[in-house]
C-alpha cells in the first residue's frame, strides 16, 4: 500500500515537472519569437515615428512604449497579428504625442508664454536636421531623403500613416487597416491620395 502511494506521488510529481518544463519551454519560445519580431521591426518603426514627430529622442520613447505595451498586452496573441497591433499602438502614441504638443502650446498661451516671438519659433521645424543626426549622417542620408521626409511629414495625418505603413513597413491593406483602426477602403483612399500628393510635390525633383 505504502509503495503504491509512493509511486503515485512520484507519478504526480513527474507529470507536474513535465508540465512545468513544457510551460517553461513554451514561454521561452514565445519570448524568443517576440524578441525576433521586435528586432525585425524596431528600426523601421523608429524611422516611421521619427518622420511623424521629427525628433529622434521622442521617437525612441514612442517606439519603446509601443514595444512594452505589445509585450504586456498582446504577447499571447498569434505572432502573425503582432505587426498590425504594434503599429496600431505606435500610431496611437504618435497621435497622443501630437495632441499633447497642441495642448501644451495652447495652455502656454493661456499663461502668456505662447505669444512671444521666441516661443513661437518652432525649433523642430527650423532645425537644419530635424532628426538630430550628425552632419556626416545627414550627408549620407542625402537631400532626396530629406525632401521625402519633409513631404511625408507634411501629409495629412491619415495619409501619412497609410503611406508609411504600406510603403515603408510593407503591411498589406488588411494589416494597415488594423493598424490605423479603419476600413480597408479608407486605407486605399488615404494611400492613393498620399501617393498623388507626393508625386506632385516630389515629381520634379525625382524625374
Amino acid at each position: 500500500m505504502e509503495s503504491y502511494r509512493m509511486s503515485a506521488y512520484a507519478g504526480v510529481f513527474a507529470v507536474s515537472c513535465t508540465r512545468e518544463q513544457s510551460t517553461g519551454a513554451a514561454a521561452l519560445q514565445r519570448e524568443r519569437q517576440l524578441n525576433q519580431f521586435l528586432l525585425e521591426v524596431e528600426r523601421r518603426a523608429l524611422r516611421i515615428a521619427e518622420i511623424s514627430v521629427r525628433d529622434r529622442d521622442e521617437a525612441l520613447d514612442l517606439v519603446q512604449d509601443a514595444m512594452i505595451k505589445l509585450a504586456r498586452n498582446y504577447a499571447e496573441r498569434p505572432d502573425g497579428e503582432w505587426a498590425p497591433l504594434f503599429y496600431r499602438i505606435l500610431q496611437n502614441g504618435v497621435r497622443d504625442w501630437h495632441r499633447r504638443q497642441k495642448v501644451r502650446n495652447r495652455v502656454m498661451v493661456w499663461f502668456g508664454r505662447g505669444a512671444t516671438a521666441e516661443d513661437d519659433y518652432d525649433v523642430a521645424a527650423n532645425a537644419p536636421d530635424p532628426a538630430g543626426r550628425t552632419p556626416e549622417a545627414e550627408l549620407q542620408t542625402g537631400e532626396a531623403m530629406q525632401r521625402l521626409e519633409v513631404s511625408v511629414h507634411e501629409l495629412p495625418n491619415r495619409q501619412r500613416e497609410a503611406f508609411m505603413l504600406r510603403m515603408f513597413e510593407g503591411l498589406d491593406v488588411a494589416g494597415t487597416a488594423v493598424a490605423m483602426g479603419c476600413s480597408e477602403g479608407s486605407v486605399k483612399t488615404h494611400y492613393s491620395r498620399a501617393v498623388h500628393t507626393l508625386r506632385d510635390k516630389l515629381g520634379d525633383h525625382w524625374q
Partner: protein
Amino acid sequence: MKDRGKQLEEQAKELFDESVEKLDAATLSRLNQGRHKALEELHRPGVVKWHGPLWGAPAAGVFAVAVVAAIVMRGPASVDAIDDPVTASDFEMLLEADSLEMLEDLEFYSLLDAVDAETNGNVG
C-alpha cells in the same frame, strides 16, 4: 515606361530602407535597451500596475485644481493670442502621468509671472 506613381513608390522605399540601414550605433543601442525592457514585461505577473510614483495621482489633482483656478481668476493672457478656449478634455490630457512634468513647468511659469508682477508693482 514605368508609371510615375510606381516609380515614386520604389524610390521612396529605397531611400527609406537606406536611412534605416544607416542608423547610428547609439540609436541602435537605445533600441536594444528598449526591446529588453519590453521583454522584461513577459516575466512580470499579469496584474495591472501603476508604474508612476505613488504621489502622482494626488499631485496631478492638486496641480489641475491650481491650473483651473489660475485660469478662471486670470483669464487668457491675451485675447488676440488664442484661437480656442482651453477645454475640459485638455485638462484630462494634462492629468495623464506623462504630463506631470509639464504641469510642474506651468507652476514654475505662474510663479515667474507672479514675481514679475510684484517686481513691476502691478500687484493689488
